[in-house]
Each structure stands twice: as structure tokens, then as C-alpha cells.
């Protein structure tokens, strides 16, 4: 059945139009494929869309890239995707390098990308991410590096453009929130050529203000990613990290995030938020003052109360201690008063009297006993004495006899001896040289005793002559011997 030249039954007869020069589908697809193959490897810039990640089974990626008016299918084989440096996502601007390919079974043209790279903002973002990773590896984003911003900064430097609305926002915000904060504005370009260098210089100048500010606000209003690229500058980021004064950043608007935000000491989502973060509001300060006022009063009250309580306690303790002391004294006094010496003073005398009586009794008894013993011993001695003297009488008689006999015997003995002695004395007297001397003889003595010869002397010798009644002494003047005389 044919309707308007279409075969609706599907039972087409054998091609009968070959002679009209028609190509089969295969031939046509082959031709197209050949034409596509002739196109050399190209790089295409486009936005990723319809990307659902690698196919769960095959691992290949199927998606589309598009620009404002066109789109085309795109394939990245599993092996190529494995070499990627980042994951593809919808909306990414990418450079895809590869060749066209025609899937003949369905006649579908695809671009097979062997490699891909980010382009435009995507490229910038990737570079920023790489820089961020590098600085993070260096430790510039470590929490430990982040300095504490005083809760109440009284001197704050703002580094930003002085011509934009941002500086006014910061001023107005702080005026409203806390006019006590002194603001120092340091002007600088915040975008475009040379902006990072000016900002670095601005930070340096702000940090060297004397006296130094409590913190530096590095702020900029919102803008495109490219506008905010200034704050992803590596040199500026390093200057922020190295700034001697803590840096608070407020760059762009949430969710903008720059490298400066990451290396600063405090990150705020906007310039206004940054300004608000450096000081408490007047209301808060008023609350704090109110609270302090209460605490001050309470503290003094407590001091006074505590003082009172301490005094009460001390007073009670003193009372107690004094009471106890008095009670002790009273007891001691009572005890003393109840001693017998005070209650019955004569008891002592009585006691002494009794003691004395007893001693006396003992003394008397002892004397009596002693007397008895002595008498007994005397009796014994007397009888012994009598016994011992009974043999004395005969001895006495014998002694008397012996005495008389001795008397007689002695007289007899001496009588005879006395008469003999008298006789001998007469004889002796007759013979005495003294008798001779008395008749006129004398004895001469020389140096050597009795001299019997005149020759014993020489003139000048000492001469002594014994007479009957004494001695004559002299010196020989001359010696005359009898022989000489005879010779002469």
C-alpha cells in the first residue's frame, strides 16, 4: 500500500532506484566519516554541559560542549580521562583537543577529546587553586599562624581604594557600630595592572604607622572573578602573611574567596563584616559597662557582707573561747578551794600530832627493848667475868713470894760485887797518872801527841804541857838534849 509515494508496509521491493545514482546509507555515512577524518586534530573551546561523570560500566565520559548558538556531543575515553588534572563539571569553559568521529551505527557525530584544559575563568580558577595548594603546603594558611585580633581594636588601618564606596561603608559601619575606633585610611588601587604592588606597599605603609594599628583591614567591594584576581596574587598573599600587623580581609561578597582571605589572620565575607569584626558595638560596650557596674556593686557588697560575717564569727569565737577559759579557771579555783588544807587547816596539825605520838610510842618501845637486851648481855658478861677472876688469888700469893726472894737474891749478889769494886777502885786510884801529875810531874805533847824525847821538838814547834790541874801551851824556843849537854 502506498500513500503519497511512501511505502508504509515495510515490505519494500528490491531497490529499483539504483539506476538513479542514489547511495546506500552506509555509503553516505562512509562518505561523511571520510570527510570528518580528513579534519586534522583541533582544539575546541566550549562550555561543558550534560556531564554526568564517567559511565558506570565503561568508564568513558559522554557529554556535550556548547557555545551561544551551537552544541555538539563529546566523548572522552576512559584512558584519556584518567590522565586529567581536574574533574569536569557542567559550566566549565574548557579547551578540548581531539578529532571528530562518526558512530556509524546511528550516524552520530561526536568530538573525541584526547586531552582537555580549563580555559578563561576556569583556567584562572585552576591557577588560583594551584597557588592556594602551594601556599597551603608551605603552611601559610595554618591556623597556628593566624594571629589573634583584639576584640576591641582602637586603632585600625584600612587599605583599599579611597575613591570607591567601600571606604565609606567601612567608615559608616564603624561610626555606627563604634565611633571609638580610630580609622586610618591608606589608599591603593584594588584592581587592574599594578594593583597588587600598590596593595603590598599600602600594607607596608599601614604597618609602619606609629603607633602601630591594632589591625589592618584589607577590603574590596564585590566584582567579577577577574576583578578579584588581584587578591589572588602570590606576592600580595605573601605580603599579607608576612605583615607584622594582623590582617583582616573582606574581599568581594560571599561566597567569593581569595588567596588573601586564606592567608590573612581573619577572613570576613564583606568589607562591612570586616569592619564590624574589629570592635564591639556601642550597645555591647554599654551592656558590658552595665554588667561591670553591677559586678562592682556586688563585689563591694560581698566584701562588706563577708567582713561582717567574719566579725560575727570572730566575736562568737572570742565569746566561746573566753567562756571556756573562765570555766577552766573557775574549776581550778573550786578544786583548790576544796583541798583539805583550806577546808580544815587544823587537820594538818592533827595529823602531825598523831604522827608524833606514834613516833614517840615507837621510841619508848625501842628504848625499853634496848634496855632489856643490854641488861641480859651485862648479866652474861658479869657471870663470865666472875668465872675468869677466881684463879687470881694463888697467883698473887706466889708473886709476892717471888718478889721477896728476888729482893734477897739481888741484895746478896750486889753486896759482894760492891766490895770488890771498892777494892779495885782504890787500886786504880793509886795507879792514876793524875796522881803522878799531882806530885809535880807533867806530860809534854808535841805535834804528834805525847813526846817522850826532847828530840821530838825543834825550835818554833808548838808545845803543850799537861799539869795536874790544866794545860800550858807555848812555843819551843830552844831544845837541849841531855846528850848535847854531856858533849858540851
Amino acid at each position: 500500500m502506498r500513500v503519497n509515494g511512501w511505502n508504509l508496509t515495510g515490505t519494500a521491493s528490491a531497490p529499483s532506484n539504483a539506476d538513479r545514482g542514489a547511495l546506500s546509507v552506509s555509503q553516505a555515512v562512509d562518505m561523511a566519516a571520510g570527510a570528518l577524518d580528513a579534519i586534522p586534530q583541533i582544539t575546541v573551546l566550549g562550555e561543558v554541559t550534560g556531564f554526568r561523570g564517567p559511565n558506570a560500566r565503561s568508564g568513558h565520559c559522554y557529554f556535550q560542549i556548547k557555545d551561544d548558538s551551537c552544541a555538539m556531543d563529546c566523548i572522552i575515553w576512559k584512558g584519556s580521562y584518567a590522565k586529567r588534572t581536574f574533574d569536569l563539571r557542567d559550566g566549565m569553559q574548557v579547551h578540548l583537543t581531539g578529532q571528530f568521529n562518526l558512530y556509524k551505527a546511528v550516524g552520530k557525530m561526536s568530538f573525541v577529546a584526547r586531552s582537555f584544559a580549563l580555559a578563561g575563568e576556569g583556567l584562572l580558577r585552576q591557577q588560583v587553586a594551584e597557588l592556594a595548594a602551594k601556599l597551603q603546603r608551605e603552611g601559610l594558611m595554618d591556623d597556628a599562624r593566624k594571629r589573634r585580633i583584639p576584640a576591641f581594636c582602637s586603632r585600625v588601618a584600612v587599605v583599599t581604594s579611597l575613591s570607591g564606596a567601600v571606604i565609606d561603608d567601612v567608615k559608616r559601619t564603624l561610626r555606627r557600630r563604634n565611633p571609638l575606633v580610630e580609622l586610618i585610611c591608606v589608599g591603593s588601587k584594588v584592581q587592574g595592572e599594578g594593583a597588587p604592588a600598590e596593595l603590598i606597599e599600602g600594607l607596608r605603609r599601614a604597618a609602619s604607622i606609629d603607633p602601630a594599628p591594632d589591625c589592618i583591614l584589607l577590603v574590596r567591594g564585590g566584582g567579577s572573578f577577574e576583578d578579584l584576581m588581584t587578591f589572588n596574587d602570590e606576592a600580595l598573599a605573601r605580603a599579607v602573611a608576612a605583615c607584622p600587623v594582623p590582617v583582616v580581609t573582606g574581599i568581594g561578597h560571599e561566597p567569593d574567596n581569595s588567596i588573601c582571605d586564606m592567608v590573612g589572620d581573619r577572613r570576613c565575607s564583606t568589607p562591612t563584616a570586616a569592619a564590624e569584626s574589629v570592635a564591639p558595638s556601642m550597645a555591647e560596650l554599654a551592656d558590658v559597662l552595665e554588667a561591670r557596674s553591677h559586678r562592682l556593686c556586688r563585689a563591694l557588697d560581698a566584701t562588706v557582707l563577708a567582713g561582717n560575717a567574719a566579725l560575727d564569727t570572730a566575736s562568737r569565737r572570742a565569746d566561746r573561747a573566753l567562756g571556756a577559759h573562765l570555766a577552766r579557771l573557775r574549776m581550778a579555783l573550786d578544786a583548790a578551794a576544796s583541798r583539805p588544807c583550806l577546808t580544815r587547816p587544823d587537820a594538818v596539825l592533827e595529823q602531825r600530832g598523831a604522827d608524833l605520838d606514834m613516833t614517840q610510842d615507837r621510841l619508848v618501845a625501842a628504848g625499853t627493848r634496848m634496855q632489856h637486851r643490854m641488861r641480859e648481855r651485862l648479866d652474861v658478861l658479869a657471870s663470865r667475868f666472875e668465872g675468869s677472876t677466881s684463879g687470881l688469888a694463888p697467883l698473887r700469893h706466889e708473886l709476892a713470894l717471888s718478889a721477896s726472894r728476888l729482893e734477897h737474891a739481888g741484895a746478896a749478889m750486889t753486896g759482894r760485887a760492891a766490895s770488890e769494886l771498892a777494892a779495885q777502885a782504890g787500886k786504880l786510884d793509886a795507879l792514876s797518872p793524875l796522881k803522878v801529875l799531882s806530885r809535880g810531874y807533867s806530860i809534854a805533847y808535841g805535834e804528834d801527841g805525847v813526846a817522850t824525847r826532847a828530840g821530838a821538838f825543834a825550835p818554833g814547834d808548838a808545845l803543850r804541857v799537861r799539869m795536874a790541874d790544866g794545860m800550858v801551851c807555848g812555843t819551843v824556843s830552844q831544845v837541849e838534849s841531855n846528850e848535847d849537854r854531856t858533849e858540851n
Partner: protein
Amino acid sequence: MAEEKKKVEELSYKEASIELEGIIRSLESGELELEESLECYTRGVELLKSLRTRLADAEQKVSVLMADIDGADALVPAEAASDEDALRF
């Protein structure tokens, strides 16, 4: 409390605030002599009064860091933020 106290007016808001907190803490510690407590309290009240006045009378101080001809930086007083709360677009 031996060191000579600065006059309250000579203290910055922050200094006065810190001193006040210190006074309250030492009072709260309850370790002061009664005479010291009273002295502290008097000083605290003075500080409190001065701080309140300053809060009430606070005026914003803004200056701009300007480079001289010879390149040295100097602070030049600038206008405070305008009073009006209306936002400018």
C-alpha cells in the same frame, strides 16, 4: 595598688576598660583589705562614669595616610562618616 594611678581622663577607653575589669576581678576575688576594697571601688566608679560619658559622647576620628613630597607618610585628618543612614547607590 602601689603604683601611681594615671588620671582617668588620661586613659584611653581601652585602658580604662581593662583597668575597670581588673579592679572588679580583684574586688570579686575577696582578697583585698577593706580599705583597699573601698579605694578600688571608688576608682572603679570613677572609671565607670568616665567610660559611660565617653560612650555617650564618642565621635569618630578618621585620618588618611598621605605621602609627603619627600615620600614620608603623614596622617592627615579626614572627615568622619556622614550622619545620614540612607544608603547611597
